[in-house]
């Protein structure tokens, strides 16, 4: 039986209560909206890209603890990374939360994001954990329409 504490780790609860980079970026040159119609979670991710490097990143919106903490920690880890590194991290993060087999070194790359490993025990919450990442992906690709987790 999955343990609640595996899902609601202290770091996650802390980020959900005090999300980092929870702001609109006026300098953003990429942005996208993400929406989970199942629960109504709704975020906008703002990215300021210089060349292929993420100079600044922020988000706004509302959602559950998992989606908000995931968005917050995503913005923390991505600042200063290249867009290619961001996409690679998303792929690894997705494997982590869906419980897919991971390659050697994936966990190290994910760093603090490893706290989301408990999500894999709660399949209905995978969409919560990945909403901000899907939205980021859309922002990097320059998609205008709202991305949906459905």
């Amino acid at each position: 039986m999955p343990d609640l504490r595996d899902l609601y780790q202290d770091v996650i609860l802390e980020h959900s209560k005090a999300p980092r980079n929870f702001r609109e970026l006026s300098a953003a040159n990429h942005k996208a909206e993400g929406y989970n119609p199942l629960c109504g979670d709704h975020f906008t991710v703002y990215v300021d890209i210089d060349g292929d490097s993420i100079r600044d990143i922020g988000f706004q919106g509302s959602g559950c603890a998992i989606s908000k903490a995931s968005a917050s920690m995503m913005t923390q880890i991505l600042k200063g990374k290249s867009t290619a590194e961001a996409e690679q991290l998303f792929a690894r993060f997705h494997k982590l939360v869906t419980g897919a087999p991971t390659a050697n070194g994936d966990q190290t790359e994910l760093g603090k994001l490893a706290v989301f490993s408990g999500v894999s025990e709660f399949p209905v919450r995978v969409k919560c954990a990945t909403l901000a990442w899907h939205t980021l992906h859309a922002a990097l690709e320059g998609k205008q329409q709202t991305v949906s987790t459905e």
Partner: protein
Amino acid sequence: MTSVARRLPTVLRPPQAQNIGGFDVEKLRRDFPILKQKIRGRRLVYLDNAATSQKPQAVIDAISHYYERDNSNVHRGVHYLSERATEEFENARQTVQRFINAASASEIIFTRGTTEGINLVAQTYGRTHVGPGDEILVTALEHHSNIVPWQLLRDEKGAKLRVAPVNDSGELLLEEFEKLLSPRTNIVAVTHISNAIGTVIPLRQIIEMAHRRNVPVLVDGAQAVPHLTVDVQALDCDFYTFSSHKLYGPTGMGVLYGKSALLDAMPPYQGGGDMISSVTFEKTTYNKLPYKFEAGTPHVAGAIGLGAAIDYVNALGIENLAAHEHDLLAYATEKVSALPGIRVIGTAKEKAAVLSFVLDGVHPHDVGTILDQEGIAIRTGHHCAQPVMQRFEVPATARASFALYNTREEVDVLVEGLQRVQEVFA
């Protein structure tokens, strides 16, 4: 409302309330095999009845019996099994007719559910009566299934969708509703009970107001039929539609009641077998009511299961169920409201079986996951009623909804679960 509920002394509740009308809840629970199981090592506390209710053994047996003994196609075979299947199927229609007191069994159309009933009326009566600039009037409490079919019609016809507002308690503003009835209003479509917040709307008054202007009224009764006596003739509604699966019957089954005169004048919904009298390549003559609206082989087992569900409810007495559920709702409202940092959404004077609430600082989705770990099933989200969420300025709510087999002990388990949620998020 919250503070009033909080002040209610416990002694106001009679100790024998578990046994209202002489029915014994613990005994009734044994009729529902699914309730015997453990979920995540704990006793299942099923409080998601507004989504779907559990099925008593009598319903499961009726469906099994049909497939084991009577299965055959209806209305066409001359052989013995077809005769028996047809008889069972038509008996179920009569059971429904008596249950909602329709004037005739030919006014009972079997559908896949409430949603199909509404779409049927929108696509037949609606398409022939609503034109450019005409108005369709709904309320702010509607489920998406009583919004979207009318939007499709609106967009096809260039019509307008009007919405009667509710107050901060979730009660329909009757004066506003009446003002919105205009010479261009061609149909009124209203929920009987809000699935999201439990408001019972003043249906008789609404129907009288609409009829004074010769506007027909469709009622979405999905949430009402399991919780109160519905008499379509006394209400004088023009269409009434509901689902079997919220009434202890099988999924994929529903009912549309319509007044004969209206149904007779409406074009068919879908074409196919069973809905015709004769077919040539030049011309088709449609079957009489209700078969005109039942194209294709119907859900025979579903109808029989629904009939068994109604028999089950009738044997208990719907007024007894209503009293029991009312007691549970009052008890749950009091207990949940007494927790710190909880706000009940929907505090109408007339409510049935639904308690919707939000917790400070905790998203409903997280509430649902934590309660699930305790074996408690509730619904979290927008309940397919996003405009209701927008009206109350919440992204979503947590919703506990009650059925005949729920108990005060289960409400206590819910309250303990909510305390656990608050501990996790403290």
